[in-house]
């Protein structure tokens, strides 16, 4: 069963480094999501695996064997694209059977397989209709059926939900994961939407400027980000700059936030999640923006020292507040500056 490996894969377009020494392993049966801002190289990576683009350097292996140089159809990968790319003149059923028929499966056998899969996944798409007559959710189901029915054990998904209405997408996310898990497929799902990645994937790789910054379970990336960029990309976060003095993190205005495991005098960035901020004690500030989120209220607070932080609370807060950071992450101040380190690239 398929284990997919990228070994030192680079792809250059002239002087542009679309991929730079990418190493990534997707274990057999694993659902891995790749997230990053547009232009970070994540789609190029999928194309390299699918055989649409050849890497400049490096190797792509399935179960230890190199697939570089093989034509796309011999790689054993199924592809679901952003625009779904269904054949508009074929019914849902014909679309779903396409991969099977090109492999010379008997028509009635192909028919049975597609019907069985449709039942198994609990899909409700009306397969006798043309794609143009189906809702976006149904078209998505057809695209999934086509990719799975083709028999491929590796599924590559390129922004598969970005053209669907957000309400429908939430439901399709769940279906995608269910299908991949129930069929024991190995899936690599590329998206710019970190919420989507969190809801479908076992592990997530964060990319920026052609490189992989960090790979881990959703919890690991959320609680143990190794850089301010990863921290900001996988959830709401505020950043303050400060200095490490006597083993303490000290920010503008002289506030001592707590322990800091950095060399004396080191310039640092303190990252804090909104839910780690408590109200009622600590640094005085003013509420600048209040947003209602259902069971929580999100507050943007301008601290006395000029920094702006985002906090959440179940309770109504007045305009003048005090906030304290119960937990925070300390990073070395990035050489390129904080704004640049947080920019999409």
């Amino acid at each position, binding site marked *: 069963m398929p284990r997919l490996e990228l070994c030192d894969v680079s792809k250059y377009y002239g002087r542009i480094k679309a991929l730079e020494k990418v190493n990534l392993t997707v274990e057999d049966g694993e659902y891995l999501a790749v997230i990053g*801002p*547009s*232009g970070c190289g994540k789609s190029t990576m999928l194309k390299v695996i699918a055989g649409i683009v050849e890497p400049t350097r490096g190797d792509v292996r399935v179960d230890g064997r190199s697939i570089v140089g093989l034509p796309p159809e011999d790689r054993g990968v199924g592809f679901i694209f952003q625009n779904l790319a269904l054949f508009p003149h074929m019914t849902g059923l014909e679309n779903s059977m396409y991969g099977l028929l090109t492999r010379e499966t008997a028509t009635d056998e192909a028919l049975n397989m597609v019907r069985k899969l449709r039942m198994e996944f609990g899909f409700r798409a009306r397969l006798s209709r043309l794609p143009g007559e189906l809702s976006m959710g149904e078209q998505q189901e057809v695209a999934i059926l086509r990719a799975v029915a083709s028999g491929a054990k590796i599924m590559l998904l390129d922004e598969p939900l970005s053209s669907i*209405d*957000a*309400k429908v997408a*939430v*439901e399709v996310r769940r279906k995608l994961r269910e299908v991949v898990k129930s069929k024991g497929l190995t899936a690599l799902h590329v998206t*710019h*939407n*970190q*919420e989507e990645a*969190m*809801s479908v994937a076992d592990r997530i790789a964060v990319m920026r400027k052609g490189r992989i910054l960090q790979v881990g379970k*959703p*919890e690991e990336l*959320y609680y143990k980000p190794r850089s301010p960029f990863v921290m*900001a*990309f*996988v*959830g*709401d976060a505020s950043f303050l700059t400060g200095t490490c003095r006597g083993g303490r993190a000290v920010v503008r205005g002289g506030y001592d936030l707590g322990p800091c495991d950095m060399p004396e005098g080191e310039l640092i960035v303190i990252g804090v*999640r*909104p*839910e780690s901020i408590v109200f009622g004690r600590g640094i005085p500030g003013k509420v*600048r*923006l209040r*947003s*209602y*989120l*259902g*069971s*929580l209220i*999100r507050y*943007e607070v301008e601290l006395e020292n000029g920094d702006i932080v985002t906090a*959440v609370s179940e309770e109504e807060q007045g305009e003048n507040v005090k906030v304290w950071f119960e937990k925070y992450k300390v990073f070395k101040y990035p050489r390129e500056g904080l*704004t640049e380190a947080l*920019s*999409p690239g």
Partner: protein
Amino acid sequence: MPRVELKDITVRYGRLEALKEVNLVVEDGSYTVIAGPTGAGKTTLLKVIAGLVKPSHGSVIVDGKDYTMLPPEDRNVGYLPQGYALFPHLTVWENVTFGAYCRGWSPEETEEVARRVLNMVGLIGRAESYPGELSGGMAQRTALARAIASGASLILFDEPLSALDLMLRLILRYEIRRMVKSLGLTVIHVTHDHEEAMSIADKIYLLRSGEIVESGTPEELYMRPRDPFTAYFIGESNLYRGVLKDGRVQVGGLELDTAFDDYDGEVLVALRTRRLFPGVKLDNTFEASVAEVRFLGRYSRIILESHDLKFTVEAPTVKIGWIRKGETVDVGVKREDVLVYPYKYALKYPEILEAVGNA
């Protein structure tokens, strides 16, 4: 300063009614969001205010003056259309300062505002670039900056963030609001994204098929939606078909106490995903088994099963981090959070009927 009022606005294209008797008030200095699904008439509504579409019926009143027949250039309105149009032969800086230049602002004032908005959208370093040298996201941010700095006191945004990556979208939505508030501008912002609407609006008008379904603050529309479509579209809800009798509703094998007792019969039941509280005993408490737990960051999403029903719950991770798949938990829901609507009102919304089927 602008207060905008639409009175009975109807727009017909041939036989198609893009807007049907729309009434709307935008208070001076407020941030108003027009939310709704694709094809609801949101863009047409903005164009009516901008003067780019003449209504078939009704009037546009700004500060008490009738604007209905006023040409667009005399309306003092900053408009950011969905397919933004930058001047290709002008730099980012020149594009952004164009409006101020036309209005004859002083160079100092122009420079200060342009710097602020370009800083906000993270493009101060690209001020000398031409639109052709920018990525799609950068061009969109330039267009946003230009609209805010246009010098108009009423700004119309048509899906200003939808072309952007989610991360940028989440950051920029709050920054836009902060910026326009600090400049004292009045904004009407169109979006299909209900979370975006909830996060930044002072007031939301929900539009569907050319009609205003409901309006209110984000909190009002989330907590007490009067129309089933609001319960469906704004925020996430679990939707079921049930029977209401003497204020108690029967859904699947479950009976829940409600705050409604003036109706008996078939109802649509909506339970907000963020108003179901695992591990808390409330007016209604029932046992459910945990079918799935998904960590999403600040929130976690749990799928619960009970009495032949499936419930999706979204709760702060810090509150429910202890819950594991396969366990049985108590789920509490307050009486007033059990939203019910006579089922016949739901029948005109096919998307709701489909969502009920999925539950």
